[in-house]
């Protein structure tokens, strides 16, 4: 027997002005059938019977109805037009509920018939309507809690079990995740290592081929996949340290004295063009990698002054790439370039070892203020090498960072990397507060 629909009915009823809560309480108690030996529906289900008035008065009345004696309970029933079923002396001999039983009946009070309950009304004139209703409600509130105690404790037990189960589950999942993460990292590292080996083989092969060709030996057609898209006709190019990927690394050629060397990790053409242009104008030599894997192997080969890292990229996302890079390089500033600036994302990026976040889309000045913060001048580099301090993050005022757009005016202390958020500050001051809270 499910108590749920009835208890729902009860809760609903207590929301309207509680006209016949008494009857509903009674109904629910009978439906729950928790006191079979004291009170229960009769066999037909069209009446109920109190089998043991003593027990009823002692146990049930105080718990459920706040009536102190059986008589007042009966009076209450009468007010709702319940009638005691009269049992004649002859019938009494076959009466199944015993001599002391009190059977009550109302035409609309039947087992499992919640709907008809609405028809049961408190009868009689209500001169004292206001106070009496209030009184009923006042006494009903504690009644509610009284009857629900058993429910609550049962529910509590159930919830306890559920919580324990979920906790165990959660623990197991977390364990599994950490195992997977370790495996994932190992795999990525092996892939990067493989890429490196592949490139070395490729270079060696190229040297060999070149030698053979120069020695006048005719080569059969070779299926010689090229990790850096440099064609066989110009094998000399492959003698340079090179990268694998769809787009080969791009060195800016028109810079005579590049101040900085920046790695731009980005897969979108428009962004590459734009960002590279800004960087070149700032005085940076720019290398472009187009996915996370390339970024890792590139950083392994070459020391960069700064890495600008897109997040959403093919093969390997920027956050993961950063966490791998951080396993062998803790110093190079890595800046996340991203349009996702939700709390979770920001935390995730910083946890993966990003030094700062440059929110997309950004203007030239936004980019430059980030560069100013993170690109150390030569003197600062020297100072930084002497000091053993690891990069620490702290929050800076944007006004400050904007006021010092050029590296020459940079007020950065050695070993200190400031967090600045650029574009969103202009657009959305909330983000500033959000980020400060996070850090």
């Amino acid at each position, binding site marked *: 027997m499910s108590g749920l629909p009835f208890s729902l009915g009860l809760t609903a009823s207590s929301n309207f002005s509680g006209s016949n809560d008494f009857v509903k309480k009674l109904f629910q108690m009978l439906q729950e059938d928790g006191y079979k030996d004291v009170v229960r529906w009769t066999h037909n289900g069209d009446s109920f019977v109190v089998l043991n008035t003593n027990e009823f008065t002692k146990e049930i009345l105080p718990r459920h109805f706040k009536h102190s004696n059986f008589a007042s309970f009966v009076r209450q029933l009468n007010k709702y037009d319940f009638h005691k079923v009269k049992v004649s002396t002859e019938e009494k001999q076959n009466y199944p509920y015993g001599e002391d039983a009190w059977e009550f009946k109302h035409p609309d009070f039947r087992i499992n018939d919640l709907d008809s309950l609405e028809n049961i009304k408190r009868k009689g004139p209500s001169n004292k309507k206001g106070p009496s209703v209030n009184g009923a409600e006042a006494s009903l509130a504690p009644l509610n809690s009284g009857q629900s105690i058993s429910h609550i404790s049962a529910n509590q037990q159930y919830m306890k079990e559920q919580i324990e189960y979920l906790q165990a589950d959660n623990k197991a999942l977390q364990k599994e995740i950490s195992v997977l993460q370790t495996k994932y990292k190992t795999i990525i590292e092996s892939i990067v290592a493989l890429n490196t080996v592949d490139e070395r083989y490729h270079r060696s092969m190229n040297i060999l081929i070149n030698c053979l060709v120069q020695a006048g030996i005719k080569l059969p057609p070779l299926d010689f996949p090229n990790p850096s898209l440099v064609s066989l006709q110009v094998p000399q190019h492959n003698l340079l340290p090179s990268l694998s990927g769809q787009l080969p690394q791009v060195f800016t050629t028109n810079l005579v004295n590049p101040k900085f060397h920046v790695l731009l990790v980005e897969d979108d053409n428009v*962004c590459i063009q*734009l960002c590279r*242009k800004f960087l070149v104008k700032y005085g940076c030599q720019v290398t472009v990698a187009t996915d996370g894997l390339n970024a890792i192997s590139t950083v392994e080969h070459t020391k960069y002054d700064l890495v600008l890292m897109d997040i959403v990229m093919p093969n390997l996302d920027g956050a993961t790439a950063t966490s791998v890079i951080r396993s062998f390089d803790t110093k190079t500033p890595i800046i996340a370039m991203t*349009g996702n600036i939700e709390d979770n994302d920001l935390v995730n990026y910083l946890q993966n070892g990003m030094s700062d976040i440059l929110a997309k*889309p950004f203007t030239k000045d936004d980019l430059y203020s980030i560069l100013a913060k993170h690109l150390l001048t030569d003197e600062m580099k020297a100072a930084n090498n002497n000091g053993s301090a690891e990069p620490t993050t702290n929050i800076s005022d944007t006004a400050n960072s904007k006021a010092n757009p050029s590296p020459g005016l940079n007020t950065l202390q050695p070993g200190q990397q400031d967090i600045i958020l650029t574009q969103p500050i202009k657009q959305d001051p909330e983000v500033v507060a959000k980020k400060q809270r996070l850090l």
Partner: protein
Amino acid sequence: MSDEKSQELQASGMVEWSVFSELVAMDEDEEGFSKSLFQTFVDQVIDTFREIDENLKQKNLEKLLALGHYLKGLAAALGLTQILAQCERIQNYGHKNNFDNFDVAQSPAFTKSNGDESTTNDFWIALIQDALEKARDGFVKSKIALSRYFDDEF
């Protein structure tokens, strides 16, 4: 570039001038930089519109919001405000967020009516369809305005 053309482009309302002028300023040490940038953009947008169309057919909201997000980033970087606004709509509708309380019934794109509109994906698909059409319109207008400015057909 002549001032006249600059004024004409500004008057078109298609571009955010502060962003655009910064891009054009990059031409001073590399002639044709901004033009090539916009050419790349135009190619990219055409591809992306096609992808959005495909995903509209498949009613793939997740992919649609990603595409809207991507295109929004591009439009914002180049200061193309008209396209930007519509991409933002696509992204939001992809998240099932009718952030601008758009009444889809007014749109010619919404032909089919459902009993409980907001609970079905069709509702959001229709909203995205509307945004896409307006984005296309904005794209065509931006292209015309840019073509006039650069004196070249994109």
